[in-house]
């Protein structure tokens, strides 16, 4: 259709218009993720390692309030393993018949335990900075998992001409370059049970994939349903075109 060309030009302009302005951080390298692309699926082994990183390192300060322990079954854990993981955490429940709040081990149906009772407690424990909830972080940052990976690898000594404010750390990826979070991951920090080398690069890669899953647990269902739907729709388009042409052939 001769009208397509302006529409295509518009689409290109639109993409350019809505692309993020080049951030003050370094240009982000696009990583290859197993879950990217039309046929991409999550690497469950990586998700399990990533969950381990979250549990042992990040969960000390970062909540993930939108996830429930039962969601971990999607990572390949059995119901018993999920129950055990949940029970490692103590959460508050109540009031009981005496009217008091009490602590109990978490169950699979419970949401992930938060490290702090509320945002103000979190700020008080972190020099006024609020460690963001990680449930949607990958969707809430430009370039999602690439950004998370680059940030965790992005800690370095500040250049000579930059003065790092007290309480902050230099990170070449973080917008403004000065981040309240101290370097969270190092080589050998998390002991992986499956023999994977626990370099900083690997830990960062695994936790980035875990966070990508946490932001979009249904991605695999979306893509597999999408492939079936698109195949059907392409066939449907062809049939409809043939039917339309057949109808109009009587008068052309």
């Amino acid at each position: 259709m001769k009208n397509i060309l302006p529409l295509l030009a518009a689409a290109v302009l639109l993409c350019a218009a809505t692309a993020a302005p080049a951030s003050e951080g370094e240009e982000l390298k696009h990583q290859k993720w197993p879950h990217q692309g039309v046929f991409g699926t999550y690497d469950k082994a990586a998700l399990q390692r990533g969950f381990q990183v979250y549990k042992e390192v990040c969960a000390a300060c970062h909540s993930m309030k939108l996830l429930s322990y039962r969601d971990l079954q999607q990572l390949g854990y059995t119901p018993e393993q999920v129950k055990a993981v949940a029970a490692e955490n103590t959460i508050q429940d109540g009031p009981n018949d005496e009217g008091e709040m009490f602590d109990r081990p978490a169950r699979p149906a419970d949401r992930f335990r938060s490290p702090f009772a509320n945002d103000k407690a979190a700020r008080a424990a972190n020099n006024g900075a609020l460690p963001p909830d990680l449930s949607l972080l990958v969707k809430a940052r430009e370039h999602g998992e690439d950004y998370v990976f680059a940030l965790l690898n992005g800690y370095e000594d500040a250049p000579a001409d930059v003065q790092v404010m007290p309480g902050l750390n230099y990170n070449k990826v973080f917008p403004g370059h000065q981040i309240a979070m101290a370097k969270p991951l190092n080589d050998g920090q998390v002991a992986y049970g499956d023999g994977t080398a626990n370099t900083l690069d690997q830990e960062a890669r695994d936790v980035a994939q875990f966070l990508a899953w946490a932001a979009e647990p249904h991605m695999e269902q979306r893509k597999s349903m999408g492939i079936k739907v698109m195949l059907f729709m392409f066939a449907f388009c062809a049939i409809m075109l043939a039917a339309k042409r057949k109808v109009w052939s009587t008068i052309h």
Partner: protein
Amino acid sequence: MAHFGESPFNNPVVRWIDNRLPIFTMLIKEYGVFPMPRNVNYMWSFGGIAMTMLGIMILSGIMMAMNYTPHTSLAFDSVERTMRDVNFGWLLRYIHMNGASFFFIAVYIHIARGLFYGSYKKPRELLWMFGVVILLLMMATAFMGYALPWSQMSGWGVTVITSMFSAIPLVGDGLVTWLWGGFSVDNPTLNRFYALHFLLPFVILGVVFIHVWALHVTGSNGPTGVEPQSPEDTVPFAPYVSTKDSFAMVVFLTIFLGVVFFSPLALTEVDHFRKFDPMQTPAHIVPEWYFLPFYAILRAFTADITIPFTQIVLLPAKLQGVLAMFGSIILLLFLPWLDRSPVKSGRFRPIFKWCIWLLFVDFFVLMYSGAKPPEGLPLILGQIGTIYYFALFLVILPILSFKEKPLPVPASIAADPGCCKH
């Protein structure tokens, strides 16, 4: 007056119903034998596509409403619960989110067709005006709908746009407080936006009914702008135009579903995934893409109009922007009287044709400007774009009405040598 019992159908059940409420007679008349210009091209399919999108939006919206909670402390989490725990909730949300965008794509192309081919001219002026009303209702609905997840973009977008009304002299501040239901954007605002967002699509449905009614009084325009004069010029809606429109609908849905399943967040700002924090403004507040051209017009006005050599401000820049933004849509209502050329179609109006193409380019230039911070080149482009927009409708088109020498218009649709290849 028809006497009872004259329905022409053979099937007894159909006859019984039709004698009491002539739905079937109406369907045959309006969607069966209804004469359409035989040369309508695919630009004419977008009205039906828009109607399909309205249906999809209402259905997906109602299903989401079953899981949504309109309270500031629960709204964001209720949307995430829909995404994570409700069966196919993610699909309903992505359909609704992207459906809004595709609804606007269909309607903007539908309007572009109307502009290019002069479908707003006599006798279709009222049809066009109802269309503008639908556009305004769609914009209000979409604006309020975007508020409902109560994200950073939701809350701050609402704050920026509702604050705009404070520019109105005397009543501005009171009006804003009234809109908010309080002294800042908070729970009363969210709750009323939910009620209105639920209501307006059904108002749109009603106006669409009237819009199609008005269309069926005059019949459709065509690419030549020449009205049908004999049966040679027309084809019955069914099966010719119904199959053409259905094909176009399936293609459009294929593209829509491709986005829903494989790129559902392509048109969404990342700050839409952070909860609203009234104490922290995002770095860039950007409305949805379909509002960007009007946002650019709003921000194009930077100089207060003062009485010369005094400090007295007659018309603050902010108010100029508000008036221009609303004016840009309101003036569309008057288009049939701004452009009085008796020739309808841009095909036979060479200068008009290029001016309209330039308007389409201008739309995208304004869209680009609206997406960027209002400074430097984007601001200048926004200002040029705004000047062209108003100049076109208020100056150029009226002048062209009587100054332009049109090309010879075919005597009839059938006589047009370009006719009759689809």
